[in-house]
């Protein structure tokens, strides 16, 4: 069994929300599809515990960054589809830019010789 728990813990606070928002920006999706999407996109490097998606989704719902609606999927399943809101889009942009700055800083510290700036 892979130790999924560890990778979940290694995510920094807000990372999951960011990924969810980014996925939703591309297209609205329901929970299961979101998990699949994130795992595929990360080449299964990020083994997120599937359930931990839901607290993150609730936080986003509460902050009105996404909205949800019950409906029927293409495979004829009853699903709750999430959609990013305007506020969510703005939030995502801010988050990404601040994350990039942070990531850049961390890289500089970890690899002082190489300038990995884009």
């Amino acid at each position, binding site marked *: *069994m892979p130790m*999924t*728990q560890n990778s*979940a813990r290694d995510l920094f606070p807000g990372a999951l929300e960011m990924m969810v928002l980014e996925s939703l920006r591309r297209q609205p999706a*329901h*929970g*299961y599809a979101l*998990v699949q999407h994130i795992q595929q996109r990360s080449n299964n490097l990020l083994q997120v*515990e*599937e*359930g*931990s998606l*839901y*607290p993150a*989704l*609730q*936080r986003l*719902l*509460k902050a009105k960054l996404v909205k*949800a609606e*019950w409906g029927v999927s293409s495979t004829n*399943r*009853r*699903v*709750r589809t999430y959609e990013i809101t305007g506020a969510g889009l703005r939030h995502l942009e801010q988050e990404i830019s601040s994350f990039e700055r942070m990531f850049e800083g961390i890289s500089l510290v970890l690899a002082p010789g190489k300038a990995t700036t884009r």
Partner: protein
Amino acid sequence: MNWTPNIFGRSRIYNDLSEEMLLHIEEKTEQLMSEGMSREEAERSARLAFGNRTVMEERSREVWQWPTLESIWGDVRLASRQLRKSPGFTIAAVCTLALAIGANAVVFGIMDGLVLRPLNVPQAESLYGTQYGDNPTWRSYPNFLDLRDRNRSFEELASFNFALGVAVDTGKDAVIANGFAATGNYFDVLRVHPYIGRFFHASDEHGPDSAPFVVLAYGYWHSRFQDDRSIVGGTVLLNKHPYTIIGVAPPGFQGTLMFVNPDFFMPIVNQDQLGSGYPTGRRDTAEIFEVFGHLKPGVTPAQAMADVDSVGTYLEKTYPKEIAHRSTILDREGLTSFTNGAHAFVAGLMLLAGLILLAACANLGSLFAARAADRSREVALRLALGSSRKRILRQLLTEAVLISLAGGTLGVLGSVVLLRRLSVWQPIAGAPIHLPVTPDAKLYWFALVLALASGFLFGIVPVRQVLRANPYEIVKAGSGARIGRRVTVRDVLLVVQIAICAVLVTSSMVAVRGLVRSLHSNFGFEPSNTMLSSVNLATAGYSGDQVPAMQRRMIDAMKTIHGVEAAGLVNGYPPLVYGAGTKESVFKEDAGDLKAANAAIMPYRYDISPGYFDAAGTSLLAGRSLSWHDDKNAPAVAVINREFAEKIFGSVTNAVGRNYKLQDGTRVQVVGVVENGKYQVLTENQEPAMFLSFLRSPLSWAYFVVRSKRDPQEIAAAMRAKIREVDTGLPADAQSWTSLLDTVLFPARVATMALGVLGMMGAVLSITGIFGMAAYSVSKRMRELGIRTALGAQRKEILQAALGRPLKLLAFGSAAGLLLGIFATKVLAFIVYQATPRDPLVLSGVVLAMLILGLIATWIPARRALSVNPLILLREE
């Protein structure tokens, strides 16, 4: 953030969430099955990949909650479930706290009413007054006028006096009422405004009997005149003199004494007309009860006192004959000279009530500690499963606070009922005295704070226990593993609690004993078999020389009642009635300059009729009593008490035939000496007293004193009938002297009652405390006791093993409490006459009481320890 939809829409959110998660797992399962897994396998991996669904759901829900608030709510629900599971413990704890918090709330209510709350008038905080008792510097009307005009500290000074026992005649009937006789500026100084009509003012006064106006108190207007607005402007007869009702005071205004509700207010310049015996022109009377006014801005009470004293010194120099100035005490208006006593009494009560609460907390603390120990397995399990210690402590504290809030609520409910009853209670029949207590928001806040504080106090007792708990050890060894040999927190708590209870028991016993003694001490007269009847001839319009003649006729009429042994009268109040008494300066015969400062002594003065001593049961030690021949035309004579004789003349036998002088220069010959007595209050030191003939200074208001062995009720009826026979218009009532002593015994009675109640509560608390401890230690050691029994231990040894420790703690605590109690009761001596803890009866009583308490409390645990059946017990384990 808008939270309302959160609360109401939450269950929908939660339902959506659960469904969503289930669908997720379902989809995953189907996905896995389509990849070729069996259904069982697929379900399992789907669940594994999802993680702990409950935890996830919980965490998702938390998003919508106020985290602390709601987890506290969860704690509360768990705590109430836990408490419901052990109803005995819960009920005992809640009742204990209800008692303790209730007692505190009642005492606080009384303190609030008497001490914290100022008089119900505007700007009461700057209203200061003289204290009753500065005799006689401020107590004559001319002196008051001088003080009013000469002081530089007050914006304006007013004063008042009592108009007691006034017949108020509306034309239909005459009913006795009690009022204040106030200076014209009284209401203006107090800054109150009439409810209807108008008040009298300084401009209404033009010398004696110039302002026949009366203002009704709101309550009296309501009860006697049924809120009839048309009576304003009408006329009533006060002691047969016509007065115009000019207005009604506002509802909240009850005069300037907190514990007295006057029925009406009349101008002080008119009071002589009603037979008060205080002509407003004389400087040496003591008619004025208190002088008060608002301090000028920036003037401190101390500066005002110095100012008032300097006026006093000036007056003493100017009128040396009439005035011996004593320094004045100024205090907040409202409690007069009772201020210190009331403060001390309330502070004492508060202290004792605080002790009760402390004892209750100690009691509950040890109960909680025992409970925590019993639950150590549960706690250990929770710790082992990953619960944080903080969480467990919060849980325990929640339980404690829950209990304290329940107890506090109950206690406050009880105290409100009690305070409501206290506020309508008339402690002394016929006197307009009441306790101004009304429970308000302050009381509820006080109780809430007290409840929470005590909850935390006893809630933190088991904290150390929990913090040190090692889950591994406890789960391995079982809960009964450690039996404390060393001194535990619980032991200390029990000793503290028992000590507190012993203090309370000691104090209440000392108080009861003091009260019993003061009831049987020598008053200088025999109150039993003596009836008193207060008759004011002014209420029927008598005046001048008619008065003594009429009074003599009434004494003679009383003597004709069957079974009456003796009858007489005394002008004004007899000794020990309503704590009243008049003192007067006397001088040695050879004193030349009769200024007040040269007075030899200041004895109580009583103007009595012949026959008074026989009727009162006062025994004559030497010489003769007064006779009907000692009237205005005969030389002045007096009977003095032993104290007077010894102070001035050296001894009783020396005194008879000797002379002394009164302030006005009258030479008085001593014709007899009577025994010492008590005159104003029971706690007073021995005071000198003199008895002069009432014929020389007639007063329309007198108490008739009648001695008879017949039933008091019958005699009272006969006396009333006789008085009506003499004049049908005379309102009169008769009471036994003993019942009138209630007033002077009132403080002692209240103190004893309060201490008795608190002592009882203390006793109950110590019983539950010792019981809890003993029962707990027996149940903890059941197995050990069983083994001991099996190995052949005797009953005595078993008992010693089971109960030795609680009993040792009991003895220790009692001894400490007894010592503390002896110190505490020194304070009591101020309130309760003859309260002394160095009384073998009290000491042995306390020891006995604590022993009995210990016996009661350990009886059931002892029975349980003795009934140990080793076979059953050992099989169980």
